[in-house]
């Protein structure tokens, strides 16, 4: 595939993430930190986030199965997840974390369960989108090595 067409595809994909509210401005901050000294910084941070967040979601899932619920513990886990999501600009995931914590504060089990399901869904969608995006960037990297990427 031609490099410029891949570039257009990648740009359109990235724009859709912002338009659809999956990512916010914090993602731009990450991109600003990428340079020749750290050429894969964004991908590394995102990979770290996906690993970290998947692990936390697993822990929360186990904690949710316990009865009675330890809402304070759940709040703490969610706080960590929210922090990580905010770090990369994962807007929808972050918002769902906030909602979950609100349900915890009210000891609202129903609310927590619903919110957690939604969070898992949002997380899975974001994971899929970001992985596809970086896959495309890799393809761009291998197509046309002679051309330097314009920002």
């Amino acid at each position, binding site marked *: 595939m031609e490099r410029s067409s891949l570039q257009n595809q990648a740009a359109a994909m990235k724009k859709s993430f912002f338009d659809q509210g999956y990512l916010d401005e914090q993602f731009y901050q990450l991109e600003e*930190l990428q340079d020749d000294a750290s050429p894969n910084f964004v991908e590394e941070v995102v990979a*770290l986030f996906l690993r970290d967040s998947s692990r936390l979601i697993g822990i929360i899932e186990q904690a949710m199965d316990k009865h009675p619920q330890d809402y304070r513990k759940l709040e703490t886990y969610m706080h960590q997840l929210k922090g990580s999501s905010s770090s990369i600009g994962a807007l929808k995931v972050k918002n769902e974390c906030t909602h979950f914590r609100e349900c915890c504060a009210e000891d609202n089990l129903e609310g927590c369960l619903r919110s957690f399901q939604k969070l898992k869904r949002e997380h899975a969608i974001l994971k899929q989108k970001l992985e596809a995006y970086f896959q495309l960037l890799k393809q761009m990297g291998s197509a046309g090595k002679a051309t330097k990427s314009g920002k």
Partner: protein
Amino acid sequence: MVVESNSLYLFLIQQLLCQCDYKVTSCKQVQEAISFVLENQQSIDLIISDAFLPSEDGLLILETIALKFGIPVVIMSWNGETSTLMKFIAYGACDYLVKPVTLKELKNIWTHVFRKQIGDQMKYLLEIRIKHNNNNNNVLEPVEETKL
């Protein structure tokens, strides 16, 4: 030195600081940070620490290090409430940054270190002046303007 328990955020902050050409030592826990500074006072010019809410362990760093050794401490947190901010400032934080911290904010942090160093120099000069005045039986003499 950076004190931050979230690995992802720590990674991000380290990158931000390296871009500003700061040399970074990192710790994930407050006690670890305190021990390190006690053993390596001279090597740390500035501490950037999470507030560690809700336990507020960040206050420990202010109490044990900022006040005792005079190392400037900047606190950062996802919590941007004025009351929290004011509490940490009252305990001795020289700045409070709301996460996510921007490159611009970090680039300006060096001013805290500079201000402290200038402050130390001024204190030193003042002490010399006072000693000098006392030796001359409280006769005030004009002090030469010192170039910094």
